[in-house]
């Protein structure tokens, strides 16, 4: 692999700095300033950051050249803000790096972020903590930009923790509500479990690689000989699995996915920005960023693929029975993130990042659409009390439909392309677990998920927008389309969700249509190409690719059709099925009792540990032995020594003489 040229580019710092400045400005002055100014500053900072991002990405694009292997390379833009700290041979620079991968991310973050800021102006109308909301939102964007721009893993980790904090603050934004406040805590604590694993992975990297800069790590990984890789096998696997545990926390995968559905307690724009489009995809980004490391550990890769596939499927089954519009979307997000991990797990980092991008578009769209519905229905979230909204909210309805089609993988919508890529790579990559080939298993899992996804999304669509309105009279008379500030982002995102997939036309289709390029893959090749080259894919021809695509499309359309049969018109089939399979329905409604399981094991375990520590460490050691023990010892010494001090001056004099005698003896001895 040839060296990637790096160009100095100072503007990079400003992209991240602008949202931070916005957050500081609003955080300090926001409470005293008019609302319009607060939101203009917040959204303006985002807008300018977006423009700067375009400039930066354009600059990157201008620097393209043909690499030795015939692929187009772009190099990277680099800005070292300052040296953070230097300990021994370890040197951590606060360095920012823009390469094709982070370029995709900053465009999503600032672009979708800007739209969501604009949307929030409409959605948060009338909230009394207006300035606090925009402060947090800007701070989140800053942290997220640190995460994707940081070339040093420590800077990345700073962003990684920063988005966790922002997520906590925003989930518990309405902190007067106990349930919402504890949802924020839950998210934070579950995330901390994962973050700890990331920290351990970083320590291991410092020990074995001696650096935390991605550029240097990449060099280190590429110079490892096969013998060294074998020798380091256990360590590399440990590093990758620890990093992946961090990803399961941040990106809501089994076993740490439980926080994301609860995170829906936050305002809907937050769900769209943080818990759908950007933060939760950080895990996928991390793996794609460190793909050169992950490919060295087949065990870790297999684990990632299996966990991703299982998460995708199980979250989808839960999504089928949820009745809260945001909960459906939340489980759908968990499921789609599972898809992305499946993609990176089978070595198709491109498909993972591609799905990350299309998902950012259509899931942000869906969340914002749901927010528009909730806004229009005055904070009603139960889809059983919705219905027939297409007459009241036409823009929301059409854009939501586009989002549903995209996520269901309807042909030519963005989700179709990205999901198809994932399915094909899953099938093509030979994954072995204890000698058993897993690719068919994972492929069927993904196919089933695609079917379920289409089904529950259209269940949601039909129950919300079609049929009779089931809201009560009072609510119904108030239903209204949302203001322009909210519908405009919807339309923009609908366009992106509709057509965004064309940047990643799979080769099988591209060749059939006369050599259309896979723009996205070419763009990302510089970062992920070497990682992908590690994998030998089974199918040289396109036969299986056509089969996979046909199956995916059929399952998507099948899901839509089934949803239409069940919910498109008044029908008692769903109710009857729920009754017949009451046990299954109950398990699904209760989300496989995972929360209860954690409460019974981890929760009670920690409580028990706490109690033991309280009794032994706190009460016995600290209170009894140290605090009261010190006092008692002093009291005892006092009671012994008080005998000496009896008030007889002459006794004191005697002691003085005695003391002098002793000193004299010691001196003259």
């Amino acid at each position, binding site marked *: 692999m040839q060296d990637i040229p790096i160009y100095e580019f100072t503007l990079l710092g400003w992209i991240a700095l602008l949202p931070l400045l916005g957050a500081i400005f609003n955080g300090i002055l926001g409470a005293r300033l008019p609302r319009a100014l607060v939101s203009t500053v917040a959204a303006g900072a985002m807008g300018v950051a977006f423009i700067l991002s375009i400039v930066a990405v354009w600059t990157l694009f201008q620097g393209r050249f043909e690499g030795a292997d015939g692929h187009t390379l772009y190099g990277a833009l680099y800005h070292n803000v300052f040296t953070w700290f230097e300990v021994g041979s370890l040197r951590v620079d606060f360095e920012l790096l823009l390469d094709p991968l982070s370029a995709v991310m900053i465009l999503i973050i600032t672009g979708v972020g800007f739209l969501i800021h604009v949307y929030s102006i409409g959605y948060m109308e009338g909230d009394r903590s207006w300035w606090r909301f925009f402060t947090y939102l800007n701070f989140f964007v800053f942290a997220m930009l640190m995460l994707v721009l940081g070339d040093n893993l420590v800077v990345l980790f700073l962003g990684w923790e920063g988005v966790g904090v922002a997520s906590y603050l925003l989930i518990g934004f309405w902190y007067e509500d106990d349930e919402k406040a504890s949802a924020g805590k839950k998210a934070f604590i579950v995330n901390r479990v994962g973050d700890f694993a990331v920290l351990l992975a970083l320590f291991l990297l410092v020990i074995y690689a001696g650096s935390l800069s991605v550029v240097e790590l990449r060099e280190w990984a590429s110079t490892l000989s096969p013998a060294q890789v074998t020798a380091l096998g256990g360590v590399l696997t440990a590093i990758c699995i620890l990093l992946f545990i961090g990803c399961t926390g941040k990106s809501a995968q089994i076993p740490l996915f439980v926080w994301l559905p609860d995170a829906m307690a936050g305002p809907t724009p937050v769900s769209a920005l943080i818990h759908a489009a950007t933060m939760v995809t950080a895990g996928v980004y991390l793996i794609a960023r460190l793909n050169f490391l992950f490919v060295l550990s087949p065990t870790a890769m297999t684990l990632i693929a299996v966990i991703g596939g299982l998460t995708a499927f199980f979250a989808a089954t839960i999504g089928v029975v949820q009745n809260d519009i945001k909960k459906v979307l939340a489980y759908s997000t968990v499921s789609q993130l599972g898809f992305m991990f499946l993609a990176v797990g089978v070595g198709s980092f491109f498909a993972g990042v591609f799905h990350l991008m299309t998902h950012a578009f259509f899931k942000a769209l869906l969340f914002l659409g749901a927010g528009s519905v909730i806004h229009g229905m005055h904070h009603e979230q139960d889809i059983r009390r919705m219905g027939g909204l297409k007459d009241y909210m036409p823009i929301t309805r059409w854009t939501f439909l586009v989002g549903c089609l995209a996520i269901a993988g309807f042909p030519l919508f963005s989700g179709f392309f990205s999901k198809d890529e994932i399915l094909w790579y899953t099938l093509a990559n030979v994954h072995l677990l204890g000698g058993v080939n897993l690719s068919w298993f994972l492929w069927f899992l993904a196919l089933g998920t695609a079917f379920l996804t289409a089904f529950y999304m259209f269940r949601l669509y039909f129950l919300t927008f079609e049929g009779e309105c089931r809201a009560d009279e009072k609510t119904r008379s108030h239903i209204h389309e949302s203001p322009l500030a909210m519908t405009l982002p919807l339309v923009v995102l609908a366009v992106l969700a509709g057509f965004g997939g064309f940047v990643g036309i799979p080769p099988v289709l591209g060749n059939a249509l006369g050599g259309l390029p896979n723009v996205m893959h070419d763009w990302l090749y510089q970062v992920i190409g070497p990682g992908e080259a590690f994998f030998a894919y089974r199918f040289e021809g396109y036969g299986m690719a056509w089969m996979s695509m046909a199956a995916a499309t059929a399952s998507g359309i099948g899901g839509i059709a089934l949803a239409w049969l069940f919910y498109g018109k008044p029908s008692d089939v769903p109710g009857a099925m729920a009754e017949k399979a009451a046990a299954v329905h109950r398990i699904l409604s209760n989300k496989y009792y995972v929360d209860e399981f954690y409460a019974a094991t981890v929760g009670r375990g920690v409580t028990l540990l706490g109690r033991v520590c309280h009794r032994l460490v706190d009460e016995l050691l600290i209170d009894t032995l140290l605090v009261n023990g010190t006092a008692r010892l002093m009291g005892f010494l006092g009671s012994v020594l008080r005998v000496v001090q009896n008030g007889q001056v*002459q006794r004191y004099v005697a002691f003085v003489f005695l003391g002098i005698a002793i000193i004299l003896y010691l001196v003259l001895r």
Partner: protein
Amino acid sequence: MLSLPLSWYLMLSATLFVMGALGLLLRRNAIVAFMCVEVMLNAVNLTFIAFSKYHQDYTGQVFVFMVIAVAAAEAGIGLAMIVNMFRHKHSVQVDEATLLRH
């Protein structure tokens, strides 16, 4: 002028000092104890003088003046304390003044 060896002076001084110290330890009357302190001080003064002469150095005599001045101040305060003690207790026995114990 009759000249005595240094050791005689020192022996006298030591005797005076021990007498004073024993008196301070054993006599209960505050005024007597006080006088004993004076005896001890003057025993020290005698040592100073003796060494001053022996070494032909006046520094020792200067110290004696210092000690006399301090002894005078001490006598002032000490007598005032004894007077106050007598007013409170109608007694100057030091073993009765044990209010500040423990």
